[in-house]
């Protein structure tokens, strides 16, 4: 199923131009992934398993990939000749993420992560003739390489201490600092790789720079899908192995710092993508709350929040990509008078921004609400308070986006984004999804719950 995506896009590289077909092909893959939600099984001697968790995240990744392709079916900033490569690389990266969701063995996970990351390192500098893009790519690769090394080192420690790399077997071993100090350190280092992908403080330094440097469409991908992959692994590992008290405390502290640092940094940003970059650092903190809470409720809400985050960030990036169709980075003032020039898009922005704040009745609210209620009463009540106070800080900059769109006068005529093709439909469906998941989260929550149940011992 994932190979199908790859196949289509390799075809586009070698043979005839697919053009708009790319979006349809990825839509077909997404539909297949959704249909395959119920598939169960194991491959490669237990390294790769199809379970509720993997299928849940795979479907999310496939849908997200489809949306990203549909948002930028002909990305302006990528040269015409390189466009097939661009889509191929994104598809390979998505494939890596899907493998990641299914991996139940640490080395497989590592390989899948590298597959997902390496193709993104190649995509990042594709923004033609842009120095910041090159810089972003270099940063991305360097930070990535460093974290990879840490991860690999952690993996070796785990192997040395526990003599296995299968998650199911690891779950049976002792994981307290007293009983297996080396393994705990190893796991912490191993998880660093995934926290890096999640852009959790202090592994977030790449995030705003990369968002700002790479093309708008690429940023839409980088900001959403790799996080889902990372979350899938984190949910699996935390579910199976569990966090001991110290690790949970450390993660809680990182989550709190991540929210606060992300929000405060976002307050002063003018570049929309950079702003969203810092906001995603704070969202990584929110998602980590579910991991800190652990247990069925915590993991369910983390998985659920992952999908909510995918939807709301894609909706935000949909606006980012469409506001500046010349491929430049949009700033807050580019949103001025969006309401006048494109009311539909302004509404998508409204839904996305309020969802990112966590205001009902949007997906962001339900996601955050489940996270907060799963964490309450598990010894980290202070983190809940920090999270809601952070919501209060975040209102300012998200609301600022809406304010620019709805109350400011358009700066210059002619700069108005022109609606074309199916784009308005895509925006509308994203907004409807945000409201739909917000108003009636039960079905999606049910899937997330099933996913979390699988990994718990």
């Amino acid at each position, binding site marked *: 199923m994932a190979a199908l995506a790859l196949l289509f896009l390799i075809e586009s590289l070698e043979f005839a131009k697919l053009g708009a077909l790319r979006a349809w092909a990825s839509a077909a893959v997404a539909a297949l992934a959704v249909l395959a939600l119920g598939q169960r099984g194991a491959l490669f001697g237990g390294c790769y398993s199809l379970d509720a968790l993997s299928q849940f995240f795979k479907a999310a990744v496939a849908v997200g990939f489809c949306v990203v392709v549909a948002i930028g079916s002909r990305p302006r900033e990528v040269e015409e000749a390189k466009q097939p490569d661009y889509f191929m690389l994104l598809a390979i990266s998505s494939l890596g993420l899907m493998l990641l969701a299914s991996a139940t063995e640490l080395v497989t996970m590592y390989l899948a992560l590298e597959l997902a990351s390496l193709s993104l390192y190649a995509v990042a500098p594709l923004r033609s003739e842009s120095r910041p893009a090159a810089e972003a790519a270099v940063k991305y690769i360097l930070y990535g390489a460093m974290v990879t090394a840490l991860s690999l080192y952690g993996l070796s420690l785990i192997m040395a201490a526990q003599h296995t790399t299968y998650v199911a077997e690891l779950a049976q071993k002792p994981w307290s600092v007293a009983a297996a100090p080396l393994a705990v350190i190893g796991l912490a280092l191993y998880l660093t790789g995934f926290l890096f992908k999640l852009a959790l403080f202090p592994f977030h330094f790449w995030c705003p720079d990369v968002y700002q440097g790479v093309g708008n469409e690429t940023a839409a991908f980088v900001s959403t899908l790799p996080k889902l992959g990372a979350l899938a692994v984190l949910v699996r590992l935390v579910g199976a192995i569990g966090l001991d008290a110290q690790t949970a405390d450390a993660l809680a502290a990182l989550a709190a710092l991540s929210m606060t640092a992300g929000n405060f940094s976002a307050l002063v940003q003018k570049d929309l993508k950079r702003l969203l970059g810092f906001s995603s650092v704070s969202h990584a903190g929110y998602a980590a709350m579910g991991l800190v809470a652990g247990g069925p409720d915590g993991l*369910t809400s983390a998985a659920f929040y992952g999908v909510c985050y995918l939807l709301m960030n894609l909706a935000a990036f949909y606006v980012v990509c469409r506001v500046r169709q010349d491929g430049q980075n949009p700033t807050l003032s580019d949103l001025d008078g969006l309401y006048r020039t494109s009311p539909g898009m302004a509404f998508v922005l*409204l839904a996305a921004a*309020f969802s990112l*704040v966590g*205001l*009902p*009745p949007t997906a962001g*609210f*339900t996601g955050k*609400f*489940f996270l*907060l*209620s799963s964490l*309450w*009463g598990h010894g980290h009540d202070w983190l*809940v*308070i920090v999270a*809601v*106070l952070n*919501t*209060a800080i975040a*209102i*300012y900059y998200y*609301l600022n986006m*809406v*304010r620019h769109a*709805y*109350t400011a006068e358009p700066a210059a005529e002619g700069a108005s984004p022109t609606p074309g093709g199916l784009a308005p439909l895509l925006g509308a469906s994203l907004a409807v999804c945000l409201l739909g998941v917000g108003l*009636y*989260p*039960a079905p999606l*929550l*049910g899937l997330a*719950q099933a996913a979390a149940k699988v990994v718990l011992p």
Partner: protein
Amino acid sequence: MTASGGFPFLTTLMVLPLAAALAALLLRREAAVRWFTLAVGLLEMGLAIPLLSFQPSLPGFQFVELADWVPQWGMHYHLGLDGLSLIMVLLSVFLLPLCVLCSWTYITKRIKEFHICLLVMTAACVGVFSALDFVLFYVFWEAMLVPMFLLIAVWGGPERRYASLKFFLYTLAGSTLLLVAIIAFRAVGGSFSIPDLLGREFPVSFQRWAFLAMALAFAIKVPMFPFHTWLPAAHVQAPSAGSVILAAVLLKMGTYGFMRFCLGLTPEASHFFAPLMIGLSVISILYGGYTALGQTDLKRMVAYSSVGHMGFVTLGIFMFNQQGLTGALMQMLNHGITTGALFMMLGAAYERSHSREMADHMGMGKYLPAFMGLWGLFALSSLGFPGTNSFVGELLVLTGAFKANLWAGALSIPGALLAAAYMLRATRSMAWGQPSTAKAWADLNIREWTALAPLAVLVIWIGFAPGLAMRSMEPTVARLLEHVNTRTALAHKAEQPERPILAEVTP
């Protein structure tokens, strides 16, 4: 959806405006949108008539609707009314057509979107007051912010951006802790269902901080001193209809929250923090009145007067006696009617003068007799003149205050005097002030009469025959009071067997 009480009236009252908002998107002509929204408003009023069959004497909630929402997390779509919420739902529904009428010529840009905001707002108002699931309540409570933010930010005055941002930041920041309290109530009480939670007892230490977390959200919404600074800015900048909804419904969400949640769920903490709340109420009354006295901007004056009037409401709530609570509930209704009407009249005046300054509205008595006549009536009601609705409520609150706490009563009396001072001063200069700027203005037209007359009738009707309104409130108030006082009495029995919580002083 299973509606255990037969036809789902409350859902219909919410869905109709939402469906109308979607339908309005398809309308092309601006005039059509106005007529359409007006028709929907009237239909909504018609649909609310069956709610009048409410039986005040029956305990518990009526018109209950219950369905699964998020079963995994124990959240339900649960609606219902008691005497407390019935009045607020009726008021919300009643105001929609009036808001459409008072914006008929006032709003000249983005007319379709304006009416969509009004419709969404109405749906959210009905939702807030009828929600019986704590999360559902919070959803409506917050959902209300977006249309109100847009009403101020898009159709407001020159400083609308600042005012709308301040309004949003304040109220959302306040309610974040309410969310924590909701989550904590579920952790401790095991449910999000409000009727369930009302039947439970919570540890005192838990109650205290839960009370504070909730009270912050409610106090900002009311708004109580010192959390009131968003209100004058929002009121002054908002269009008339926005001010009307803000004054009549939004502020009541705060006092409703105090009654339903603080008194209902945390009775002992309410008693414990009563001195603080009474103190803040008295300061609000005096401060609101005193500041209103210093205003030359008429809208700002009425806005500050709201701070004072709402102070009476919160004062009544924390007196823990029948008079105080009934008075508070009456004042919630009265303030909605009177201040709503005053804002409508100021909107009408603004359309003529394009100014909010008192000095630009001199001498209207001679040229606009009907306008001044109605203004006079609403001004008298606002200052609590006998024979008007506010007199009844204010008298009850003050009686309750004197009965429970002599000082609170005595200190809030000057508030009533201040109200008389600023209202009469404004009315005098508007009616007889020189030089007259009103020569060229037309008196109230049919549309304005249609919007204001029902409110005027209510002012006099409740003023002379408060029995009808009070009959629907009293049983609910009595039950609430019994709930609060028995809970507290039981908890304190061991330590203080004889002493009442607040020193009772017979007037």
